[in-house]
């Protein structure tokens, strides 16, 4: 059975790796973007040009390996890190036979996943 300390250290490690990876992806995307378009005039996106996307669309654009794709991938990495840390808690609490908290963590994981794939 894992101890509370192992649990905290594992979650801490996941958070650190996820955040650094995400920052690296966003920095890469931002760098490419500025290299390619840095000299163009900036236009403030004033209009609320609402464009609903689905999760698959976001995933597809994220893996397009364009400047915005890398940034999008960084954003997704950051959000998925949160899903992973809560999902891991479900597993840890199950192993510790703390079923109340396994259920609580599961509920939060489900809300996180729904918010990512939910379409209006």
């Amino acid at each position, binding site marked *: 059975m894992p101890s*509370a300390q192992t*649990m*905290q*250290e594992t*979650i*801490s*490690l996941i*958070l*650190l790796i*996820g*955040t650094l990876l*995400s*920052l690296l992806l*966003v920095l890469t*995307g*931002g760098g490419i*973007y*500025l290299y390619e*378009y*840095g*000299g*163009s*005039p*900036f236009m*403030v*996106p*004033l*209009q*609320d*040009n*609402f464009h609903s*996307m*689905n999760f698959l669309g*976001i995933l597809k654009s994220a893996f397009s390996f364009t*400047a*915005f794709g890398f*940034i*999008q991938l*960084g*954003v*997704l990495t*950051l*959000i998925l890190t*949160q*899903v992973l*840390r809560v999902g891991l*808690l479900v597993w840890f609490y199950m192993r510790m036979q703390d079923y*109340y*908290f396994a259920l*609580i963590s599961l*509920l*939060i994981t489900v*809300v*996180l996943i*729904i*918010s*990512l*794939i*939910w379409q*209006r």
Partner: protein
Amino acid sequence: MTILSFSIVLMIFSFLAGLLGALTGLGGGVIVIPVLVLLFKINIHYAMGASLISVIATSSGTSAAYLREGYTNLRIGMFLEIAAVLGAFLGASLISYVSQSFLSILFSFVLFISAYLTMNRHEETDSYQTSHPWALVLQLNSQYPSKGKLIDYNVQNVPLAFFIMSIAGGLSGLLGIGSGALKVLAMDQALRLPYKVATTTSNFMIGITAAVSAGIYLNQGYILPAIAFPVMIGVTFGSFFGAKILTRIHNRALRLIFSIAICFVGFEMLYKALTGGL
């Protein structure tokens, strides 16, 4: 203005926002949104989307460090997070239905409340001998390290904290912020946790709450890469830097200046919203 100069200026302002956010314990969101809206004339929806990403990055990065130090109470964090994620889900689902001026007005009130809470926080620890019945059932009582030994603490009003968390979650979803000030209030004033436990546990929760909001914002196209990347990089580095120098500066004077400043920004946003300037 070229894209390069816009991105650099935005990054510098976001860095300062992250730095001030870390020094005052408010988080970058409440500062970076007014900067984007008032200074750069960016649509508040996009400003909130960019802010959310920086909030998650900052919270995750600092939580990683706090978790190792043993202050964070994971059980309290997860239990209260139920209310926060449901609130955030509801709040974020509503943003495309409410007007920008409504959001700006609500935001300015959050700024006033944040200024008040920043000035009125008490950091001394009261010790309680009894705990709330819910705290016993859920085993929320714990210990925290202080001066080389572990000190026990008893958790107080759990239902009240749960209720405040749902409001904090709703505001996080509606306004694209971490709602750190309100989360700390719930744990400090309702649960009566030691201050360091309250702030680190709040920090642990913010990333999860903001991720729920960010998922919905992302699906609605409110997270624009061109705006999100300078903000995320600036705020994240600013808050890490701020957390490093935190112990070396006089916090109280800074909090006073900061409270006055965000009240000023709050009035500016309120005025612009009411006169149709946004």
